[in-house]
């Protein structure tokens, strides 16, 4: 069982619009729980009514991606408008420091090895190069869809670094 077999809860932010009648918010949240979702935050913006008199609500929750379509159907069936869905696929991040001939050992390839996994990406890089022939230092931000995948990404980075003679400093 690979990483696809585990819990693929993805963080999702969703903007919906409710009719201005009592009980609508509960009606909107119930299907999220019914489908096994985990609600993280609810922003009920009563003071920002739309032109059509609806109330915008911003939801953030975690849910298996394959259940998302079913959720949207249910919400629509209740007469709610789903305005937008944003997926925050990469939930967990860590900073690592690299020391060595980072650029000359093909940093693009180093990053590509992480990005090509499909479950992790390099989302930030700051590089400091003191001079030709001197060792550079870099701070690299790794993100992944979960903690387990983040560990796996770090392992790939460590293997790549060992191969290229780069030192990796990871968080405790």
């Amino acid at each position, binding site marked *: 069982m690979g990483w696809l077999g585990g819990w693929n809860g993805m963080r999702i932010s969703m903007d919906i619009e409710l009719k201005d009648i009592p009980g609508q918010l509960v009606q909107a949240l119930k299907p999220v729980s019914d489908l096994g979702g985990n609600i993280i935050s609810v922003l009920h913006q009563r003071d920002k009514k739309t032109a059509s008199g609806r109330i915008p609500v911003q939801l953030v929750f975690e849910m298996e991606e394959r259940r998302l379509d079913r959720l949207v159907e249910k919400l629509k069936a209740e007469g709610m408008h789903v305005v937008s869905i944003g997926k925050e696929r990469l939930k967990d991040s860590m900073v690592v*420091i690299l*020391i060595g001939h980072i650029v000359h050992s093909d940093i693009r390839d180093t990053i590509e090895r992480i990005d090509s996994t499909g479950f992790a990406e390099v989302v930030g890089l700051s590089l400091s190069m003191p001079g030709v022939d001197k060792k550079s230092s870099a701070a690299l931000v790794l993100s992944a869809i979960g903690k387990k995948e983040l560990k796996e990404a770090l392992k790939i980075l460590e293997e790549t670094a060992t191969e290229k003679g780069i030192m990796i400093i990871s968080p*405790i």
Partner: protein
Amino acid sequence: MRAGEKIKTVRISIVGFGHVGSGVAEVVMRKHDEILRKHGLDLRIVGIADLKGAIIDEGGLSRDEIARFGADGALLDMSSLELIREIEHEVMVEATPTNVTNGEPGLTHIITALNSNRHVVTSNKGPLALEYRKLMELAERKGRELRFEATVGGAMPLISLIRENLAGNGITAIRGILNGTCNYILTRMTNENLPYEHVLREAQEIGIAESDPSKDVEGIDTAVKLVILANSVFGMDATYRDVRVQGITEITPDALKLARDAGYAIKLIGDVDIDGRLEVAPRLVPVSDPLNVGGTLNVATIRADLAGDITVIGKGAGPIEAASAILSDIIAIYS
């Protein structure tokens, strides 16, 4: 000490009379009356030996006699092993320098003392990092104690904290800074934005780093201490060759700055856990973490199943600090 309790005389030999050995003599003298009053122990140093020779007095050496150790003509032609075997005493303090290649001469001193029915208290990491199990088995067979608080973290109570105060807890991991020299160098590099070589030279000038700093900066000293923790706390049968070790010689001021910008300090961390992890490496420590201590301090976080995380911070090196740990070990044998 309660009224009516009998005073127990504890005769001590000190083998290896460098900084630590003379520190032990100093604190035994300085604390003699207090220990007699509080613990009912009359500590007497009956013999001192090192490569130069020995001095003995079965009634207890005086402060003057000890101070003159090493002066011309004042030494007996008696080897350390003869002293350990032939002079009657209860506790042998082994304070010769650490040797991680074969553990000698400390290893033979400890074996000889246990075989002569002496308790042993040591600050010498070599014998424990190489032959932990063998030595503990011998001590048990002889019904004697082998204590070694001074080997890890100097004055910082770690081994007895776990053994006594945290008794009943399962320890799942210990992680910390176990080498003050590396901590000093990294702290200074971070604060002053100076390169490694520069700070190392500075540390050598003020006596924080040795002229051959490799044991410290390459992580060997930390690895050896980690092995002692692995064997004594986690029941492993490891030697220091089993540890994955990376030192601090490659760390750049730029890396320290990048880490700081991201909210981290870089520290040389020793890491041992119940799953057999044994690793020494520079790691990113969040600036708000209790492990983020500066200067020459040592620190360790003990993860206990009942008590949670407990962190101890203290002076890792120094003769009086090591002597403090040795003295508490001696008292613990009799309490």
